[in-house]
């Protein structure tokens, strides 16, 4: 590893860890604010800082900072009979695996440094586009936009995702508190149950993609169709299992407030509690990253490839626009993080919409529904995959066209959603005049409720 690669490794680590940690902090705000929006409330908007007499509230975005300050200044209390070493170790054990997990997740297409150097050497002109297939012209200058291009990819992910149990179990056990212990037991059994289903759902994807490296999976999806079209059942099963893994509503039995105070981290205070809290949100981000990489095409966008925009159905090529390599890199990185943000948003919607499962329902869902469905998915995928392999070039060409159609469908759906949201944003909702109360009549006399500018 030479100096350049070392610098690039540091940059990649900073990008990935920075994104995960910061988006976890923002998620603590988003979760509450979004829940408020869904429930017709205002949500957190009180944190304020003043510069030159002007108040800034930034729609409540300062709350994570205020929370962080509070966490750090609060007392670290340890119950007298708690296990000192394990009690202090547990928050670290629950946080570290999540942070380490992002090492194998690719957040952009392979960067070819020599393209950028060539531009500098040429002194202007249009940057050339990369060829669609094949790596960079110089292998030395290729930078994989993932922290560690491990060839075991998904296995590493599963190994680390499984470690989350350890932190929760140790936290509950060492707290010397019955509620904590019950929460830890629930966490352990829940995560073990769903780990099985989670691993099995991905077997089908691995068979189709023919690799367990996440960047190769993304490339396959870019060349063919997104995983959600290839393995629709696995997508929903994995999404469910990943939600259960992150221990959030509707699967938040380990920390069920109404039953267990707050489960395995009942006894934690200050930043030690904050670490559990952050680990939960970081799990949301990392599980979103995994789902995006495996099922939603990672950094790929429909019709956008390494060499630019190509709209082609089978042999029929409709359009081709070459786009410089550097722009494709920026688009791919933005696409990946944009998809992750959208999926985090969706997870928050789910968290605020669905009620908590009962414990027996949770186990039934894991063992009687997800596991058999995952096994059936593996079986069907294997049979179909084998059949397609034997089918011959006619079927393959047909499937290629179908894959292009799914890409077109994705493009249409994304465009529709964006346009629909934009139209909805600029359409005013009609109001219905209705009866008002005596306070309203008084307000009409005095000219309405005085509204201060800062309410958001």
């Amino acid at each position, binding site marked *: 590893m030479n100096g350049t690669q070392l610098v690039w490794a540091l940059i990649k680590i900073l990008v990935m860890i920075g994104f995960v940690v910061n988006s976890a902090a923002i998620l603590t705000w988003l979760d509450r604010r979004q829940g408020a929006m869904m429930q*017709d409330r205002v949500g957190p908007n009180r944190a304020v800082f003043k510069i030159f007499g002007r108040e800034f509230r930034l729609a409540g975005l300062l709350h994570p900072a205020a929370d962080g300050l509070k966490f750090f200044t609060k007392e670290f209390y340890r119950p007298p009979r708690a296990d000192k070493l394990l009690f202090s170790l547990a928050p670290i054990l629950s946080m570290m695996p999540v942070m380490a997990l992002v090492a194998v997740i690719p957040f952009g297409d392979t960067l070819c440094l020599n393209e950028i150097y060539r531009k500098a050497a040429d002194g202007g002109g249009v940057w050339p586009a990369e060829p669609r297939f094949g790596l960079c012209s110089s292998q030395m200058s290729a930078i994989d936009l993932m922290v560690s291009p491990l060839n075991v990819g998904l296995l590493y992910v599963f190994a680390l995702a499984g470690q989350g149990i350890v932190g929760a179990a140790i936290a509950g056990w060492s707290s010397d508190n019955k509620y904590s212990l019950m929460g830890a037991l629930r966490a352990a059994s829940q995560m073990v149950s769903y780990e099985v289903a989670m691993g099995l759902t991905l077997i089908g994807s691995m068979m189709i993609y023919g690799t367990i490296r996440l960047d190769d999976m993304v490339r396959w999806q870019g060349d063919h169709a997104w995983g959600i079209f290839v393995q629709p059942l696995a997508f929903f099963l994995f999404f469910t299992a990943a939600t259960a893994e992150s221990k959030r509503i509707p699967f938040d039995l380990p920390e069920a407030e109404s039953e267990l105070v707050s489960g395995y981290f009942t006894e934690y205070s200050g930043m030690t509690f904050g670490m559990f809290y952050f680990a939960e949100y970081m799990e949301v981000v990392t599980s979103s990253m995994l789902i995006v990489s495996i099922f939603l095409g990672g950094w790929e966008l429909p019709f956008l490839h390494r060499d630019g925009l190509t709209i082609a159905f089978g042999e029929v090529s409709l359009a081709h626009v070459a786009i410089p390599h550097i722009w494709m890199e920026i688009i791919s990185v933005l696409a990946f993080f944009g998809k992750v943000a959208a999926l985090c948003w969706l997870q928050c919607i789910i968290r605020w*919409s669905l009620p908590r499962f009962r414990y027996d329902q949770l186990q039934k869902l894991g063992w009687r529904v997800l596991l058999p469905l995952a096994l059936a998915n593996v079986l069907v995928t294997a049979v179909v995959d084998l059949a397609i392999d034997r089918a011959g070039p006619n079927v393959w060409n047909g499937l290629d066209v179908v894959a292009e159609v799914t890409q077109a469908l994705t493009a249409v759906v994304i465009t529709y959603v964006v346009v629909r949201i934009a139209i909805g944003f600029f359409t005013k909702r009609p*109001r219905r005049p*209705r009866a*008002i109360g005596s306070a*309203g009549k008084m307000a009409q006399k005095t000219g309405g*409720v005085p509204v201060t500018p800062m309410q958001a």
Partner: protein
Amino acid sequence: MGTTFPKKSSPTNAVVVEHVPHTPTTQSYIPAIVEGLAVSMRHFFKNTKEMIRGETPDPILETYEDGIITVSYPEQKRPYPERFRGVHRLTQRDDASPRCVACLCCSTACPAQCIYIEAGEYPEGDKRHGYERYPVKFVIDELRCIFCGYCVEACPCDAIRMDTGTHAAPYDSREQFIYEKDLLLSLPARDGSLKTINPRHEPGDKSHPGLTREHGH
């Protein structure tokens, strides 16, 4: 087949809820989950849009509108109804003396016994001397008060009113809730005036309908 209605004897307007049959579709909860997520998203998009564009319904005038109708309290205040019984005030005459004649009607009517009045004679030479009295002390314990408004009803002189439009402020100590005469006299009505619109006819005035000093016994 006629439709059966709930029996008339039922005290409530009972709504008959149809039992949802258990089918694989309903038991998988998937339609219900999709429906629920759709409702959540609709609310989310609508409220976020209105929050960003500042179009949230007026919390008072559009109380029954869909959307965020929160009154952000310290910045926004819900206007009290016209006849809201707020903190008491003692009304003043034209010469800024209290209208109160210390008749003790209010303290007698008070069910919470929170009004304490010490009556005194006007000094010798004052034209009201021997005609009416004035409160040397007029104390209301606002912690004890139940804001029933009986004192206002009982007052024959329109001297005590509850039209300040403010609720009793929260204080640190109990002593601060003891409102003395000077404080009560200084509290304005909702329109800012320290008097009332009901006219006061002083003895000796031409408008005074009844006794003057000369007519008296």
